[in-house]
């Protein structure tokens, strides 16, 4: 297809081109930068609309303040990165960069369109899950290296939240895999297109669980206990400044982007109405954007839940529901497999 032609023209092996373009351009960091610019602007504008305000306005008044985030980014890029003397320097500096690299790596596996992926594997569904599962460890390192009580507490909360959220997330992923009898994301999308029914219709419980668990793992309100501004300032990111802080802020949006991309592949039929590379990629991209908009809209409705409430909600209500979704998948698999 397009990538193969491009590879032959440049004279590079196709796997190398894929491995570079997917994590760095689309669906990787380049697309993520555009998404982040739009989503954070939309988050501010939507919240402002609900809250009877104007939102970002002064930077690029004709575009409704759309370039505000860019202006903030430029300002913060020139800001001094203050490294407190009490921190573990190497871990403190490396952790945010490492966490961000993990997100880019996970984006190499999730297809952003028909044939638009970095690597394909028969177990590609487990790869992003495993990679994103590394981030809490990095955040714990961040909290420890920052050497501050607020960051310790934030790191502890991150671990607690991850343990609660990942089980539900994995259960919903496995339910999907069981339903289609495959662990390959590309194959799952193809099966949805062939059947003509997106996964959310067949197994809405799994889709719901995936979405809620994704909200928890990406610190969206009402589950933003890790950031917890009113108690622990910025959680594990309290001591960061300048570009390192921007990386940390983008971390949650990056996680959200990766998970919502996965959601549109697994439950919304990926590039469903289209088959071409361009239109198909656009379909996935727009589905992801809409999902992210829903996720950020919750900010204007809810406050923050307490940790014990979140833990009990996930372990005693959502986890049994995950078992139900596995049963649904098993039934669907038996009924519809020819």
């Amino acid at each position: 297809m397009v990538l193969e032609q491009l590879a032959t023209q440049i004279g590079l092996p196709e796997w190398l081109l894929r491995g570079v373009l997917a994590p760095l351009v689309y669906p990787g960091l380049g697309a993520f930068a555009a998404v982040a610019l739009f989503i954070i602007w939309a988050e501010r504008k939507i919240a402002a609309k609900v809250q009877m305000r104007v939102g970002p306005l002064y930077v690029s008044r004709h575009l409704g303040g759309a370039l505000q985030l860019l202006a903030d980014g430029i300002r913060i890029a020139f800001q001094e990165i203050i490294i407190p003397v009490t921190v573990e320097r190497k871990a403190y500096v490396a952790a945010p960069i490492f966490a961000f690299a993990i997100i880019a790596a996970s984006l190499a596996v999730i297809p952003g369109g028909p044939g638009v992926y970095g690597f394909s594997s028969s177990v590609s569904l487990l790869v992003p899950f495993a990679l994103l599962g590394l981030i809490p460890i990095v955040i714990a390192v961040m909290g420890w290296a920052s050497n501050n009580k607020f960051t310790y507490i934030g790191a502890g909360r991150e671990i607690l939240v991850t343990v609660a959220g990942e089980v539900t997330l994995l259960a919903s992923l496995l339910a999907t895999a069981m339903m289609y009898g495959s662990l390959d994301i590309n194959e799952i999308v193809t099966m949805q297109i062939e059947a003509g029914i997106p996964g959310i219709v067949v197994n809405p419980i799994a889709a719901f669980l995936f979405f809620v668990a994704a909200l928890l793992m990406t610190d969206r309100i009402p589950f933003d206990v890790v950031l917890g501004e009113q108690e622990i300032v910025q959680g594990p990111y309290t001591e960061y400044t300048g570009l390192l802080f921007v990386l940390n802020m983008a971390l949650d949006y990056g996680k959200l982007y990766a998970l919502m991309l996965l959601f549109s592949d697994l439950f919304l039929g990926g590039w469903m109405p289209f088959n071409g590379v361009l239109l198909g990629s656009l379909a996935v991209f727009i589905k992801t954007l809409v999902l992210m908009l829903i996720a950020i809209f919750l900010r204007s409705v809810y406050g923050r839940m307490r940790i014990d409430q979140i833990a009990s909600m996930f372990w005693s209500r959502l986890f049994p529901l995950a078992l139900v979704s596995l049963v649904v998948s098993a039934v669907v698999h038996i009924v519809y497999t020819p």
Partner: protein
Amino acid sequence: MAIKLPGMYGHEVGKQEGYRVVELFIGPQHPASGHMRMILYLDGDIVVKVDPDIGYVHRTVEKLSETREYVRVISLIERMTIIDACNVTLPYVEAVERLLDVEPPPRAKYLRTILCEINRIASHLYGLGLGGIFLNHSTMYMWAFGDREVFLHLANMLTGARLTHTYSVFGGVRRDLPQGFKDEFAKARRYMLKRLKEYDKIFYNNPVIRGRLENVGILKREHAISLGATGPNLRASGVYYDARLTGYAAYPDLDFRPVIGKHGDALERIWVRLREIEVSLDLIERALKELPEGPIMNERFTKGIPPKVRHWFEKGFIKLPGGYVRLKTKAGEVITRAEMGHGEITYYLVSNGDIKPYRLRVVTPSARNVILFTVLPIGHTLMDFPAIYGSLDYFPPEADR
């Protein structure tokens, strides 16, 4: 489960065997501390002791008031609670009036009541907004602060200033009711009643918010009385007390009934504030309906005004005689009290017959409520601490004076 720590510092506690207590300093540089510092002692995630460290915004109001003439003290004590300026100055004005043997005309009393209630609504909205953001509910925060503008506008219309409106002065008020105020208030009342229903939907009945506030920071009735809690925090615990019942300004004529809660948890304290806004709206409406005609200033201060500037009176403004700045009171002591948005404020004024107060002692509601910080969060988690703080409507500049 609370651990008793009789008179022990955090670092001592940490050394005690069996205790793993972390000392957490919240504030004064913290998103949710206000102008103060809270020293929390945490065992795991459980708060075992709270040490509120007040005094960061102490402005020596009591001492400064001894150096100023009586009328200049009004604009000084307004700065204690700038969001509630009428309520905070009214008992002082009444104290000086008692020493001067001056009685304000009935219309002035009604106008004071109207502004006090407008201020109370604005103050409650301020507290509710902060209560929202303490739970990271930014919509409640923005809504309450946005709707507060309506009442600042009403205050502006009545007095000419949004916040520090030095409206009640000895013997009356400075301005008469402007034309069109009644219509404007009717509009504001309709709007606010509609908004209160929306507040109930998005905040008070929001399952997440309910989960955060219900059964958190319970203040029992006996406890509330023995600790000397005041204001909505006291009434939420089921105590039938409101300083407005003691009958100052026009309250005795208005058939005022306070809002009383039952359990005294954080949710109930928010509920009392929401319902008190409704009560205040009714009070203003009744006061506007029953507003008596007549002068707005005591004859004693207006009779000496030269006829040349008397035309100001017809426009509803008051011109005061030059001697008003150097009023001499009789020697004596007075205690007055009033209900502010945050609770009951008490003034103890001692005069030795000079043009300045000999001593002005102020007990503000927040200064009385600060003790609740040491009691309510014990045994709750760290996350409950902002919820309790938000429900108390504590205002550090007022407590520090």
